């Protein structure tokens, strides 16, 4: 597997946190229901992304970790892709759980169904402590290993934008537009994509594609989110088929200004809310205060990479300090009455002092003649 040292370090840090909390064993669970805003804790510790419905890493403080999973036929892949040498069928978990000593922590409770939780509690004779902060504290800031994957994903996202610009044309259906982006990114190795690409002269919001036939003059908006090794980056861009109406250029310029001011506000040590405030103030300056709330927008960005927990949503009141190595998306995506929904956003990484974009695509509106 790749990055043996990286995962050794994670396990070592995880065990230190277990000692600090007095935990003898950690149970780390994944349900196979992947969600780019929720962390896959098993993948973080093993580099293995499950296909089956049940995966549990049992990490004792002293003893060897064991990965339990279904389906059984996927065990060889887990052995090859992860550093965990002992991988067993999920149904053997029960022979291990009852022998777990004293205090047990559970990570992944959010993805667990009630019957499994009850069974674990019964087997242990105790309710395991919710210990997700152990991994979330470790994963707040990205390592060089993670940044390398994120940069690769960012190149793929940029390529997706380029593909859309190259191949979008009137007459295609919306789902074919989305397929253009998806294909280019998969071709470069993307494993998954939280991707929405839609076209309309006046978009209400982003959504998965329909069978609407794309017309000249349509505004194509996209939120493209490829995944490499369980790590996601996102890019948001706007494209117009044909010359954009003056109002579109004028209003899109507000998004660009908001993006720039949002980037400037993202200073290491500053609260996450500063970014949201900078973007909101931009729209307020142009008379759109009433549009700085749902349903016209959601948040001005959010944590990204392996979940959204750090720094959380870029919105008023989020006092989480931006730290070196945090990765998140800044997106002043906005519905405006004159143009409909417009999108612009980059995934950034915090350096020692400020945010730096991982993307290379221009912030300009894309025009397809």
């Amino acid at each position: 597997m790749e990055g043996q040292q990286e995962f050794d370090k994670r396990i070592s840090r995880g065990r230190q946190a277990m000692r600090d909390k007095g935990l003898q064993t950690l149970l780390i669970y994944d349900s196979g229901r992947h969600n780019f805003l929720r962390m896959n804790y098993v993948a973080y510790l093993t580099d293995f992304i499950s296909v089956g419905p049940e995966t549990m890493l049992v990490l004792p403080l002293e003893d060897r970790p064991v990965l339990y999973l279904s389906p059984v036929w996927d065990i060889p892949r887990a052995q090859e892709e992860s550093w965990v040498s002992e991988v067993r069928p999920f149904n053997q978990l029960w022979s291990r759980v009852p022998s777990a000593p004293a205090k047990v922590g559970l990570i992944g409770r959010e993805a667990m169904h009630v019957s499994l939780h009850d069974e674990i509690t019964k087997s242990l004779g105790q309710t395991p402590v919710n210990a997700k902060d152990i991994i979330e504290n470790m994963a707040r800031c990205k390592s060089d290993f993670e940044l390398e994957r994120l940069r690769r994903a960012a190149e793929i996202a940029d390529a997706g934008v380029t593909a859309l610009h190259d191949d979008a044309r009137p007459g295609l259906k919306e789902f074919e537009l989305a397929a253009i982006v998806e294909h280019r990114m998969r071709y470069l190795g993307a494993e998954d994509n939280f991707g929405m690409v839609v076209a309309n002269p006046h978009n209400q919001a982003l959504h998965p594609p329909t069978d609407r036939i794309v017309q000249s003059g349509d505004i194509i908006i996209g939120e493209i989110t490829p995944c490499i090794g369980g790590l996601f980056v996102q890019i948001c861009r706007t494209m117009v088929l044909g010359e954009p109406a003056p109002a579109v250029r004028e209003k899109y310029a507000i998004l660009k200004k908001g993006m720039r001011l949002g980037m400037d506000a993202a200073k290491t040590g500053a609260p996450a809310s500063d970014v949201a405030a900078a973007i909101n103030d931009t729209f307020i300056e142009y008379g759109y205060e009433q549009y700085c709330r749902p349903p016209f927008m959601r948040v001005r960005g959010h944590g990204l990479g392996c979940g959204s927990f750090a720094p959380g949503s870029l919105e008023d009141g989020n006092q989480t300090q931006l730290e070196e190595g945090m990765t998140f998306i800044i997106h002043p995506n906005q519905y405006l009455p004159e143009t409909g929904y417009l999108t612009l956003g980059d995934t950034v990484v915090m350096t020692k002092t400020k945010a730096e974009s991982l993307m290379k695509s221009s912030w300009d509106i894309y025009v397809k003649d």
Partner: protein
Amino acid sequence: MIFGRHSVLKRGCSTWDPTQVPQTEFHSRLDAVRREMARQSLDALVIYGDNYSFADLCYLTNYFPKVRGGIAVVPREGAISLLLNIGSRDVPFAKTLTWVEDVRASNQVGADGAKLLKEKGFEKTRVGLMDSGNGFPLPQLEEMKEALPSVSWQVCDSMIAPQRLVKTARELGAMREAGHLLSDICDGALAFIKQGRKEYEVIADIDRLARDKGAEDIRILAGDKRLNPPSFKQSATLNNHWSLYLAVQHERYWVEAGRTFILSNDAQLQAAYQKTQEMVAQMAAQLKPGGAVAAIDETARHALGEFYSTASLYGFANGIGLNQWEAPFLNEDDAREVGATSVGANTLNANMTLALRVTFETEARIVLFGDSFEVTESGAKSLLGG
């Protein structure tokens, strides 16, 4: 059972054409569910579904979550409500996928679900809870139950399952359409599968083909030694053969197929692939009304001999429809693997739909063939049209 990597978003074509599947179809389903609710003295039913397991939710509402999940609140009388973990700006689009008029957004489905039940006057009643996919996030479920201490909860995970076992004419029509789409993809894949190409490049081409044909979602596993999901780690190039598992969701319904593409003159591989096809045909011959579900497994056991135990890891058959893995299951272990409480049926009936597959692992090489079928009065009929 074969599982593909669940995607974070159902990002294929997402539409509902009421002229193809009209509201009356859902009303008749709802009537049957309400009769069962009355029989069980339930005042309301809460059905959870998410983008991994949406069958029961979709069966009544036609809605399938694109990301995360949501609940339908089904009173024994009166209007259904959908409470979805989406943003308020997403509600208009969600409404294009369902006949349900009351669609609400929430980022805390448990707490808001409790409020919705209270609003409808169910805070001191008997409420059924249906989560056959085991997806209701535990903290949300706890929030909902804690906010409704006087509700008498009844687990109803399998309430709709018997109804879904036998497909209606419209469902079969949708599945045949999905089957034809999958058949086209299998045929089209031939053009991409060539020695020396990288696996993920070929997968990208197949995925594009499916999306361009309007698939709602796709699962692809492939390899020559084992079945792998698309991964940047799986950068091998195609060699002498390549096995491919494909499942597509189209107009809500899943169909699956397995194919092995032999790219050399390896007679042993060709013979093995021939055998998998023959075995699937033998299993399909058991698909007749009144036939025993267990006969499928017995046929596989008899035909596979020493290879049976390895091949059984992938499962030989399961029901397919709104869920990739649904009743009837061949055995309790298969059912348990996907969280079902029972095999669902021991006897086959006309208009059931099943996926059949045989997977050989021999000398570190994998060979796979599979297809999806409907049970007709005259026997099995491939949904792929073969």
